[in-house]
């Protein structure tokens, strides 16, 4: 019940906002903020039940939705989805705060779309019915498309359309796969289908399994984005408004990795294992490639975008290492990346609001007029380069450690990315904050105001918390991952027996 509240309250808020008068900007902002905060509070209440039994699904609702084909509204969360849901509900109010003064035109639509986006995101992480999942998966497209296209920068239209078509092209394949699965199994229900697979009532031939896996994989890989399907990301990030970038980087990209963990591993274990080698090659390529290209970006947001390509490469590596530590690390890294990269985009947004430029070259010496901003940026940057005691370190360590346990050379290559991350981040930081500030920059660069503090502090706290005391988060994740790996292993055994016959 509580979960349904978390899912649908944003939708209610969306409609509510549409009903509000167009020009009462403050009212709209306040309403949006209040709604999102309530949602966040509600989502926090989800922690307790999940921690009771992190491997099981809590807060399950399962009611018929469409009579034919039998599609059910089946939602629930476990240790895997819990934190992603909370991440979404946390970042929505934060995005609202950062957009407070950033958004000047068409305020109403903007905040409405933010809430609609939250609705879709929470739904994606909670859905337990393939069809429902696909619906939410697509629903998130629309608000993000408008967020980029209406409130973005100069090349926004190209970016928005590219984003939409890229993702759509991927997801139609997934739709085909889902329908095919239904025709084979007669159900859209995730759990039911897992059961059928486990018991062998649903027997997929090797070819079928491979093709289905690829269909899902491509859809998710585009979202992640996995090299070389990543080129929509720099444009989307580079052109999106701050809030858009934050939501996109922090949560939407996780839809892809979440899908990989939730569906690709347990459903098509054999195919997943067989294809893991080249996928890991792509992931590692992405790690290094993203870092190298990020290094030479003249534009801050694109730099951070490419850094995301690099970081998400770690996640994919962790997922396809089929190793508890690596998988835990991967899921943990999803959250870390959400927190730290989100914060980075916010800070870049702060800079943009002051200077109205994203070109690193237009900055320099910001630390003098805005020391607080510089300090916060430093902490965030250090988190994202994986400094111990800050969050990213834990994720990267677990991923690499796990990968190393499976195959040491993976860790060797992937760890190069850790070096490079320091290179591009520090270089960007130095060019932006160090040196003598020009007078007009000094003049345009007030230090952080209270609202900006309020928005960023939760993330800073999380960076330290998740970096030092992982016990809050890791056990639940670990438990559900153990189950995932278990399922995938049993299914593999079953598949092997099947193909042996």
């Amino acid at each position: 019940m509580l979960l349904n509240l978390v899912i649908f309250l944003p939708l209610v808020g969306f409609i509510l906002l549409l009903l509000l008068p167009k020009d009462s900007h403050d009212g709209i902002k306040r309403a949006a903020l209040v709604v999102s905060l309530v949602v966040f509070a509600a989502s926090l209440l989800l922690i307790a039940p999940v921690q009771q039994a992190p491997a099981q699904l809590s807060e399950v609702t399962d009611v018929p939705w469409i009579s034919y084909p039998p599609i059910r509204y089946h939602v629930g969360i476990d240790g895997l989805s819990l934190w992603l849901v909370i991440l979404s509900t946390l970042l929505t109010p934060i995005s609202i705060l950062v957009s407070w003064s950033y958004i000047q035109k068409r305020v109403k639509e903007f905040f409405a779309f933010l809430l609609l986006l939250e609705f879709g995101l929470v739904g994606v992480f909670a859905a337990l019915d393939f069809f429902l999942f696909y619906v939410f998966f697509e629903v998130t497209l629309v608000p993000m498309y408008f967020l980029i296209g209406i409130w973005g920068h100069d090349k926004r239209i190209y970016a928005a359309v590219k984003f939409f078509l890229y993702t759509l092209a991927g997801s139609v394949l997934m739709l085909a796969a889902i329908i095919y699965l239904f025709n084979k199994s007669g159900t859209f229900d995730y759990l039911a289908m897992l059961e059928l697979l486990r018991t062998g009532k649903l027997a997929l031939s090797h070819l079928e399994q491979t093709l289905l896996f690829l269909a899902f994989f491509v859809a998710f890989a585009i979202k992640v984005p996995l090299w070389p399907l990543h080129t929509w990301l720099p444009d989307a990030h580079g052109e999106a408004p701050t809030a858009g970038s934050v939501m996109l980087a922090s949560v939407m990209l996780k839809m892809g990795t979440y899908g990989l963990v939730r569906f690709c591993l347990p459903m098509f274990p054999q195919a997943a294992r067989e294809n893991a080698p080249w996928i890991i090659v792509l992931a590692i390529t992405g790690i290094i490639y993203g870092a190298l290209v990020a290094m030479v970006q003249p534009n801050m947001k694109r730099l951070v975008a490419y850094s995301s390509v690099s970081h998400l490469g770690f996640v994919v590596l962790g997922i396809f290492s089929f190793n508890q530590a690596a998988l835990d690390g991967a899921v943990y890294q999803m959250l870390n990346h959400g927190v730290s990269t989100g914060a980075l985009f916010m800070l870049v947004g702060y800079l943009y609001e002051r200077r109205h430029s994203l070109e690193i070259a237009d900055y320099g010496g910001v630390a003098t007029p805005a020391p607080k901003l510089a300090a916060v940026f430093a902490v965030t940057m250090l988190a994202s380069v994986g400094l111990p005691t800050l969050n990213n370190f834990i994720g990267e360590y677990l991923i690499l450690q796990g990968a190393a346990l499976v195959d040491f050379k993976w860790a060797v290559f992937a760890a190069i990315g850790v070096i490079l991350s320091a290179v591009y981040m520090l270089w960007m930081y130095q060019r932006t904050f160090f040196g003598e500030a020009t007078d007009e920059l000094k003049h345009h660069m007030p230090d952080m105001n209270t609202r900006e503090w309020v928005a960023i502090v939760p993330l800073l706290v999380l960076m330290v918390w998740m970096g030092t005391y992982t016990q809050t988060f890791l056990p639940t994740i670990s438990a559900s991952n153990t189950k995932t790996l278990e399922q995938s292993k049993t299914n593999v055994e079953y598949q092997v027996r099947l193909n042996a016959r």
Partner: protein
Amino acid sequence: MPANFIPSAAELIRFLPEMILTLAGVLLMVLVPLKQNARGLFYGLTMAALVAALAASVFAFADPGPAFQNMLLVDGFATFFRVLVIGVGILTVSMSNMYLARERAESGEYYALLLFSLVGQSIMVAANEMIMLFIGLEVSSIATYIMAGYLRDDKRNNESALKYFLLGSFATAFLLYGIAWIYGLTGTTNLTEIRTVLLNPDIQPSLMIIGAAAAMMFVGFAFKISAAPFQVWAPDVYQGAPAPVSAFMSAGPKAAAFAIFLRVFLTAFEPISDRWTPIVWISALLTMIVGNFAALTQSNVKRLLAYSSIAHAGYVLVALVSNSQVGTAAAMFYLVAYAFMNIGAFAVVTHVARKGEKYVRIEDLAGLGVRQAGTAALLSIFLLSLIGVPLTAGFFGKFYIFKAALDSNLIWLTVLGLLNSAVAAYYYLRILVVMYMQDPAQATENLPDLAPGIKATLWASAAATLVLGVFPSLALDFARQSAQLVK
């Protein structure tokens, strides 16, 4: 010769909707000379008649069965489409009222023609006989020819009407010739009897000729539903005709044509389906490709929507290829969904075009999101539905169709179709882009508020699009029950 040819009451009831519509039409014809352009009266009368006909067609389904010596067969399928076309009529009328007033055109004759063409369509969808089918088709078509050229002083209208008329009759001739041969080889014009003949190995005629004849009927139908390579007329006609008429043509007559197409090919010619499936397969693919790709380069909204309607016909053809009850149901649902979203889109175009349809280029929509947020929002709903975004009717339409296709193992057709729908997203997105992300061009005369009639059409269509997008079962369940054409 049948013993009693006096139609029983039940039969008359099954024919009630047509009667109501006809009477209303005649009444209008009588009233027109007496009351010079009493728009309100004509409008009210037409609406009343349509609502009555709607009720009648539902009422007629209470006691389904054949009528008039098997000329008609009022079953769920027929009822479904009757309701659909009459519903389309209602939406069209309510948006046409303002249009006719704006263009200073007589409304009485227009409504009469609309009613008559609806008579033709509701006869078509219920026809169980080649003759009935042919006459219904002609009634509907001829009325539509006139409506396409309704503004007789508008060059575009003339051209549209002429092209539609000439090519339409041309294609009809093929249809007729096909019918003639079917009759010649089977000795009957009744669909079910044709089927039995084809199934009976003893009296089975040369399938070759049957196939050829079926092919000629296919030409006729394919023309009406604008399937490639017979789609050529559609863009010109839709572009030239008055916007409400284009909306009507792309929703009503098209749906009716699909209805008879399905009925004929899935009952009468079902036994030789392995002969006609390949060509329909190819035609479906071509239709999707031609429609979508040609639409990419359009700058005129009406023409773009015309191409898009071609593409959507392609999707429905996929359902036909899958040749199954599920497929039929999918096609039926899709036609409903398509009717709503397409009429909605055309309604917005009608509204934005202003008098004389001056503003029909995509650029003319620039900044609509600011100038009239409500209208823009509605149009975006329709466009998203046309793209096939979840929680809109269009999505479920596509979903069911491709599901049916996969049921019949049409894997390649499905994949290609899905990719096509991804391509299609591009040109719909272009409209969204222009509406929301470009500033209005200078010197655009300010937009009048939405007329109540159009507003009604828009809200109704939008509501239907969304409701069917969340609860498709409302329409689908009935479609599935009535999709069984061969008892």
